[in-house]
């Protein structure tokens, strides 16, 4: 499987086009490296050093060279609230937003059933990246491969892109659900014990989702290019 359409977000991390949809989606959940670009720019006082300390207490930082199968989730930003993820999306620019449940599930199904790529490099995703981004993604992918090997899991694109064995990802709920946000995903059991089944639409709706920080909750963004055209 070679991904023809790749888009880079403002921090230089890749997004792929979801087959059958017009939006691009981050290839991995948002990393701390990406969010730190935003933190440097944020000036309203909410995202100060204290805020980041709280996030790091929930899920510590790790440098790319120290990533392995027992800590690769430390590379991602988690413990973030949905509204804060939206702030990051707004900072990224017009057309960026959190995924909707249907988009996340479509991506999962596509990668789970249709992908035969044996590595992210094979998809062509990494060729356009700067060295720092490429190194981080490559190290994470190696760690995920090891984790899959340890548990006897297959390592397809759905695992390599961490829709499985990654984080719970904030998504906006469509339809008549009274909540605005829910989590989709299946974190690695060593990061957060769980028996979630995202393939069956297992929406995780924590109590007080607007205010309680959970270590295993992160996010990835969608980018809708048609919104940019409308903006112009």
């Amino acid at each position, binding site marked *: 499987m070679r991904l023809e359409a790749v888009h880079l977000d403002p921090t230089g991390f890749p997004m792929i086009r979801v087959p059958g949809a017009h939006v691009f989606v981050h290839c991995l959940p948002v990393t701390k490296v990406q969010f730190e670009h935003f933190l440097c720019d944020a000036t309203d006082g909410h995202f100060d050093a204290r805020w980041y300390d709280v996030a790091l207490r929930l899920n510590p930082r790790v440098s790319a060279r120290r990533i392995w199968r027992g800590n690769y989730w430390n590379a991602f930003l988690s413990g973030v609230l949905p509204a804060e993820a939206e702030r990051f999306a707004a900072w990224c620019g017009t057309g960026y937003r959190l995924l909707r449940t249907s988009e996340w599930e479509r991506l999962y199904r596509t990668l789970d059933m249709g992908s035969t790529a044996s590595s992210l490099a094979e998809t062509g995703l990494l060729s356009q990246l700067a060295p720092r981004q490429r190194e981080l993604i490559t190290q994470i992918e190696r760690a995920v491969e090891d*984790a899959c090997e*340890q*548990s*006897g*899991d297959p390592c397809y694109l759905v695992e390599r892109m961490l829709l499985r064995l990654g984080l*719970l990802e904030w998504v906006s709920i469509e339809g008549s659900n009274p909540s605005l946000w829910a989590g989709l995903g299946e974190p*690695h*059991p*060593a990061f*957060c*014990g*769980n*028996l*979630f*089944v995202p393939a069956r639409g297992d929406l*995780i*709706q*924590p*109590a*007080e989702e607007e205010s*309680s*920080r*959970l270590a*295993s909750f992160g996010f990835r963004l969608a980018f809708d290019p048609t919104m940019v055209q409308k903006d112009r």
Partner: protein
Amino acid sequence: MWKFLKKLFGIEDPPPPRRTTYHSSSSVSTWPSPPSPAPAPPPPPPSFSAPEPVPEPEPEPLWSSLELVSAPQHGKTSFLWALSFMARKLGLVWPEYVFWPQDDTTDESFRSMLRTMDHRELPAEATPSSQLRLSLRGMERWGDRRLFVEEGRDPVFGAVAEDGVSQREFNWGVPVCWLMSLPDLGTEDSQFVDLQLDNLIRTRMRSARSYEGEPLRLVVALSKADRIPNLPRELREYLKIDPLAAVVKAETALSEMGVEPDRPVLHFDSKAVQLYLETLWGVHETIADWLRTTLTGSLLARRADAHQISLRFCLISATGSDLRSNGHLAIPWRPRRVLDPLFWALELGCR
């Protein structure tokens, strides 16, 4: 004390050889409504490769009981809560099933536990000793039992009195469930589990019962299985896809829509129970095979063989996830496969 307990629990004539005193214990016990006949001879070992016809239910239920041992922090209280919760829900799958607390104290304890679970709370680290006495009537295959849940001292891993002798009396004549949380072993020492089994066997041998006459029947329940990182995929899938948990979830969804199910959502009839037990046997074998690939598991199996222990493995997750916020679960309790140790006890207890 026994007379008092008999009066308290409404037991009239338990079979003398199986008599036990549930005093300051930590146990999950089931026993039939009185009067009970003498135990039947042990059935042949199950052979699930070629399923046999379901045996006819015994005319009178057999004495059956399960004792529970666990090291601290291995999820014992959560398991007992989840087990009680799911035992209550069995009416959703068994049309003849009736469940009720046996006295006012139990009724209040049970309601309190349900309220606590409903608020997504977790047991406190030092949970005060509590008791639950429940009647379970009309279980397919096993008939009528009483489920006695008591939490207190543990004779193997728990507190020991100053004179070095455990305070509680323990019924070694019934299957023993050893709740073990692999993520909480807290050591890389491969011999640790083997030494714990040795400790358990020694405690058993110090009891008044003849070990040779009544070898240990041990159900090893791997607790907090949602947190085991290298759990084989098929076992993880087994936990995820729990038909009894799915029934509970369906009932909850119906209640939220204001619809009361007027009959069991899933009929857990004799064929379904037999199929469930076949799957349970397969899971036991898969866990045994998986554990044997490790030194820890090999040592455990070797010692169990040496002491002629009837060993059964199963795995459970009392909460279904470890998604916590401020000491509470962030999502509702989702117990998975917590009835499996009880099912094993009912099967092994028929011997």
